[in-house]
């Protein structure tokens, strides 16, 4: 076969309007559209199914038909580039942010980013989280020089909308109900062991954890968090950080470095 045969076949697969490529036959006739449609259908249904399994809350929020149409539009513009479909759909949330039929659901891209982070965490490398005992053993005068290594599964998301609550309402954690408040919500996504966990973060928490995940010292992370939210509660955030299992190792930076 020439390379052309596959060029034509591939192009026709992704374009539903195109005719059956030349050179294809069946014993019942020369141009078998329904037979070619089986392949076209397998490709699209398979990819739509892959996206639906990565974004189940999104499908609940918009309903199956709308999700299918939205996924179809996305696949046409952003077909997968790897046979490893575990990672397919990374930029689906960004696509939806610009997808006009979904423009009314301003929170939807953030809920999708949360779902994408959950599936990344699910497949991330395994690592043993630090325990409270390890933190308790750090010499007090050196605490501000502490540098932590984030868990490979850790992600921090910031939303101008109640993305965590909306996700929770569409993944069996709470009943979908009218939203009585409209707060911004930040989330920590992490898989300390085998379950992916989503934590809603308190004021300053996202900046605090992101600074630590970026390799800043604890002292600098506290400064950044206070700069972001004067109400930042350090002991609450430290307790949350330790309990979440979001960090896996620690070291002490040489003193005297400015933030």
């Amino acid at each position: 076969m020439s390379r052309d045969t596959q060029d034509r076949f591939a192009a026709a697969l992704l374009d539903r309007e195109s005719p059956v490529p030349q050179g294809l036959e069946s014993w019942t006739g020369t141009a078998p559209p329904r037979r070619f449609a089986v392949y076209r259908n397998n490709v699209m249904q398979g990819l739509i199914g892959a996206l639906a399994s990565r974004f189940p809350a999104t499908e609940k929020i918009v309903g199956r038909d709308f999700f299918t149409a939205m996924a179809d539009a996305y696949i046409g513009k952003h077909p997968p580039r790897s046979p490893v479909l575990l990672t397919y759909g990374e930029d689906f949330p960004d696509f939806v942010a610009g997808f006009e039929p979904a423009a009314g659901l301003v929170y939807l891209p953030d809920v999708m980013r949360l779902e994408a982070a959950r599936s990344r965490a699910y497949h991330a490398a395994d690592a043993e989280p630090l325990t409270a005992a390890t933190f308790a053993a750090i010499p007090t005068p050196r605490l501000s020089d502490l540098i932590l290594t984030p868990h490979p599964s850790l992600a921090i998301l910031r939303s101008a909308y109640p993305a965590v609550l909306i996700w929770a309402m569409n993944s069996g954690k709470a009943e979908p109900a009218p939203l009585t408040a409209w707060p911004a919500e930040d989330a920590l996504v992490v898989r300390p062991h085998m379950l992916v966990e989503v934590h809603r973060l308190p004021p300053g928490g996202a900046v605090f954890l992101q600074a630590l995940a970026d390799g800043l010292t604890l002292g600098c992370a506290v400064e950044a968090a206070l700069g972001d939210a004067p109400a930042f509660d350090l002991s609450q955030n430290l307790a949350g950080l330790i309990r979440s299992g979001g960090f896996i190792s620690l070291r002490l930076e040489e003193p005297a470095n400015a933030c």
Partner: protein
Amino acid sequence: MNKSLASLALAGSLATALTTLAAPAASAADAKEKCYGIALKGQNDCAAGPGTTCAGTSKIDYQKNAWKLVPTGTCETMKVPGGMGSLMQGPAPV
């Protein structure tokens, strides 16, 4: 902030944090309001993430145009205050 002062403040907060951790975890009822309360764990983690298959599908093709569709899932239940993010702002009101 002075470094040793910072470490001193940190030490106090860490001590409080470690005491908090020794206490029983927050109840599930707090999940809706509390931050860092109880983790919202994934449900049906078996299915998390797309999978590949070597099978075809017998589901027939559809010919739906997204531009003529409106979302019809739980977004209709989750009405939001002040119309923000509500369907009324969408291009095709229900």
